[in-house]
């Protein structure tokens, strides 16, 4: 039979009719629509049992309580813990994004030993056993040679059991070189020590204050315990408290405040003294406090009255004298005024003079250790370990001067001076640093003058990082001994930054360790045991968890259940018992503080001719500039007038930009005496003319592709400036030259 065209068409027609009468087209249509709506490669979260774990966030010193939602064994969401004394249910954007640090690609998955050149990124996996013996061997050798003091330890904190284990280890090993990373807390601690004779942390009763005079503190930009500050800021809206923000740039905090007073940068101390002048001259101060509980007021008063009249302060600060007078009056007349300092997030200690001047304002209005005021909060004394027994090597090692010069003749009162360490290593004046441990810190990123820091690190023959993430310091280490991530480990978090009463938070494992990591506390115990002798016997615990449980004693159970311990019997000291100075009173001008010397601005780097502008950093809650970098989710939230692609924007007043012939979005070259960088220009009316502002927290070279290589690290452009009294870094900015690129 011949198959003709008609037959063929007929066949097709029959086929078409049959197909239409079969389920094939309809089923295919249905399936393909299901397929396109649920691409098989789109991850679908697994179903399972929901549970919640209470813990503490340790991504910043804020110490927020967190409640982590889990589906089976997987953590799926971090929320603020309801009823927690710090954050009561709130959480910041970094805390919310913590899971990206837990499960993200930046984790160090196993102990790593460097095989290539430093920083080359070539590593060899080693076992924990080998890691312990390798470190023990190096430390043992140094000790045998009588060089135990050449071991240094940079730690993000010196409070709580883990940092205390570091301290204990160094003591029994024989090195005085435990160095805490700096912040405004250093200045406050020193001020409380010298003016009140207290070894304590500053605590601020923000919730009860009703007039907040902030000398550049980023109240909603991450200062102190960020979430607590957000909440306090909301409380102030309800209670009608006033917030006065003094800083040269319209930050988010300034924008949210009741009044923003732009000030010539670095002249805050003079303004504080000018305010004091008006308060004293108009007799607005607290007579009871001044007469009965203060000492040295007369001398200080003379200085303030002589040198800081509103008119002379107006010349220094650029704020007109009527504003200063009005400000002083409203501060002194407010029922519960509170003055605070620490620029931005308070990540630099700043000028000591400034801190004491601001603190003196609080004393003038008598709100020391008083509701709505500032408290000296002693560290909770729950760590009571047996005294260590030191052998001769340890004793002689501990006798050596600290490499950073803290506690030396020059800076007798400072406890840690990390900013002086690079110079000490590079100059080699005292002794070389042979081994450096870094835990809870990322000095290669956070320390200013990155080049000098890098040079100093290059001179240290053996660097060990305990970082959970591949950060800048870990990248340049010889050995990475990854700690569990903060959601995988137990740790006590004593009194978060700025809390007016002691609280101990408990960070506890939310999930099992995801990788071959080890708790740094466990490592230190193992290391001490491997070294043996007095060191082994000082660390009798079988592991860190045992140590923590034993240390916390009866508090342990409550903390596991609630997530924190607050001291129910905590009471505020009366003014009679508050001050442990020689006079037993509040010292307005202790000799050591140099408070009686006239105001001298911090001598920031760069000369006016070559560097006509001033570069200042600014902080944002969207940019983590401390020990951890931004997780991808937080990077995404950064505005594109701050970061666009890999370009960072500087903020500059349109007037200044005009003088330099710069337009919005244009590329410019920023040069300081320390370094230079290519940036883009963003015109901003909210910044004083003559200033250039650059965000902190960008310009990472480590971490993942979402963060690395984006923007510029501010610390590459600025060097430390030693404060003459404290020795801490007092730099608030650096002089800069701006040219079209």
């Amino acid at each position, binding site marked *: *039979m011949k*198959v*003709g*065209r*008609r*037959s*063929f068409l*007929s*066949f*097709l*027609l*029959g*086929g*078409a*009719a*049959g*197909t239409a*009468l*079969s*389920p*094939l087209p309809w*089923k*295919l249509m*249905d*399936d*393909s629509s*299901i*397929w396109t*709506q*649920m691409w*098989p490669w789109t991850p*679908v979260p697994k*179903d399972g*049992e*929901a549970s919640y774990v209470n813990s503490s966030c340790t991504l910043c010193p804020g110490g927020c309580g967190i409640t982590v939602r889990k589906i089976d064994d997987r953590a799926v969401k971090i929320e603020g813990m309801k009823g927690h004394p710090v954050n009561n249910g709130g959480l910041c954007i970094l805390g919310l994004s913590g899971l990206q640090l837990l499960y993200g690609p930046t984790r160090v998955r196993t102990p790593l030993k460097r095989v290539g050149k430093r920083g080359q990124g070539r590593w060899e996996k080693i076992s924990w056993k080998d890691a312990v013996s390798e470190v023990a061997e190096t430390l043992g050798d140094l000790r045998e040679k009588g060089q135990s003091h050449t071991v240094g330890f940079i730690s993000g904190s010196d409070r709580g059991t883990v940092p205390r284990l570091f301290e204990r280890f160094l003591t029994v090993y024989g090195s005085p070189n435990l160095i805490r990373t700096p912040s405004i807390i250093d200045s406050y601690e020193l001020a409380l020590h010298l003016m009140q004779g207290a070894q304590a942390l500053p605590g601020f009763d923000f919730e009860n204050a009703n007039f907040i005079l902030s000398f550049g503190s980023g109240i909603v930009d991450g200062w102190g315990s960020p979430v607590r500050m957000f909440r306090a800021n909301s409380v102030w809206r309800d209670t009608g408290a006033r917030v006065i923000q003094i800083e040269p740039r319209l930050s988010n905090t300034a924008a949210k405040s009741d009044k923003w007073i732009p000030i010539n940068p670095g002249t805050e101390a003079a303004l504080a003294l000018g305010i004091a002048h008006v308060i004293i001259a108009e007799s607005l101060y607290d007579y009871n406090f001044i007469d009965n509980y203060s000492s040295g007021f007369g001398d200080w008063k003379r200085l303030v009255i002589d040198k800081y009249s509103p008119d002379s302060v107006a010349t220094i600060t650029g704020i007109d004298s009527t504003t200063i007078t009005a400000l002083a009056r409203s501060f002194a007349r407010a029922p519960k005024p509170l003055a605070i300092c620490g620029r931005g997030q308070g990540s630099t200690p700043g000028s000591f003079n400034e801190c004491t001047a601001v603190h003196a304002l609080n004393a003038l209005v008598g709100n020391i250790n008083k509701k709505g005021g500032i408290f000296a909060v002693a560290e909770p004394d729950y760590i009571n370990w047996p005294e260590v027994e030191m052998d001769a090597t340890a004793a002689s090692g501990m006798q050596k001067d600290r490499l950073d010069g803290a506690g030396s003749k020059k800076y007798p009162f400072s406890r840690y001076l990390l900013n002086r360490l690079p110079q000490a290593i590079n100059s080699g004046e005292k002794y070389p640093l042979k081994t450096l441990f870094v835990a809870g810190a990322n000095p290669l990123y956070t320390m200013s003058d990155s080049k000098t820091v890098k040079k100093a690190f290059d001179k240290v023959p053996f660097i060990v990082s305990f970082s959970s993430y591949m950060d800048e310091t870990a990248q340049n280490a010889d050995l990475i001994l990854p700690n569990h991530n903060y959601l995988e480990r137990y740790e006590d978090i004593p009194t978060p930054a700025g809390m007016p009463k002691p609280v101990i938070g408990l960070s506890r494992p939310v999930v099992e360790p995801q990788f071959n990591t080890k708790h740094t506390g466990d490592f230190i115990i193992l290391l001490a045991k491997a070294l043996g002798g007095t060191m082994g016997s000082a660390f009798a615990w079988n592991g860190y968890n045992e140590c923590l449980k034993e240390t916390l004693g009866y508090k342990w159970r409550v903390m596991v259940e609630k997530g924190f311990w607050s001291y129910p019997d905590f009471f505020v000291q009366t003014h009679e018992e508050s001050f442990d100075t020689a006079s037993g009173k509040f010292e307005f001008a202790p000799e050591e503080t140099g408070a009686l010397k006239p105001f001298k601005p911090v001598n920031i780097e760069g000369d006016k001719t070559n560097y006509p502008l001033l570069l200042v950093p600014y902080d944002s809650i969207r940019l983590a500039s401390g020990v951890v970098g931004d997780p991808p989710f937080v990077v995404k939230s950064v505005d594109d007038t701050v970061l666009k692609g890999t370009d960072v924007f500087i903020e500059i007043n349109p007037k200044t930009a005009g003088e330099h012939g710069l337009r919005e979005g244009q590329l410019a070259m920023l040069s300081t005496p320390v370094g230079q960088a290519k940036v883009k220009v963003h015109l901003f009316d909210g910044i004083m003319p003559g200033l250039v502002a650059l965000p902190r927290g960008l310009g990472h070279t480590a971490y993942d592709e979402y963060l690395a290589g984006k923007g510029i690290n501010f610390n590459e452009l600025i060097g430390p400036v030693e404060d003459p009294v404290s020795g801490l870094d007092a730099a608030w900015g650096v002089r800069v030259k701006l040219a079209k690129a």
Partner: protein
Amino acid sequence: MSALDDNAKEIAEDAGGGGGASSSPEVNTKEQDKGSTGPVILFFIAGLLASLILGWIIFPKLLYSKKKQPIDFNHVLHMAEVEDGCESCHFFREDGTYSGVPKLDQCIDCHEEIQGDSPDEIKFVEEYISKGREVPWLVYSRQPDCVFFSHVAHVKIAKMDCVTCHGHIGESESLKIYEENRITGYSRDIWGKSIGGFKKNTWDRMKMDDCAECHRTTTANIERTGVKTPTKRVIDHLVDVVSPGTSMSEKGSSVQTERGACFVCHK
């Protein structure tokens, strides 16, 4: 071009083919018709049959891949051992969420040691229990991720029994072959065994039409009634077009479902 040329030639030949019998073109045409109607119909039927066979028989065989469960499971045996029926193992958690397929935690009490000598039992204990690995069960009733479904609303509040949707699986002595749709990756049981979508029992298929079947008819005090299925929607639209204004259906804010919101059931 050459193909076109060939066609043109063919057409020309066809047209000129009757040149020899030009005296009686009518008859000629009739004859031609007579001669070709048979095969044309035959071919139509052949095409029809072939495509029907393809669509009804071959297509489902191609569409689904057959997978065996990792181990077999006897529901009858377990039902005899438990007190609470299905909910003994497929229980509701305290927060009201539904646990679904049991995890090892529920099995481990009895199956820490091998029970009996069935090869599946030995495999279960050795491969899964002792290694702490969850059994990768293939779930016949798993709906696409975009479907919201609350067991607690149906079982606890509406007091429906398991059989209405899941059939008599609790009376099975072994697990049937899992047929996976090669395109979507979901089980055949969602569309139903019948490729034509016909069903005898409520549990034969679980597409949106089947949800709607109940939700349209159950008592009005249940909020989610009157769900319009895609099929009903098409019909309603046709009615609307043919005689506007006669349609009785209420219209909600959603253009697609003509109800309040899609997101009650769809993610």
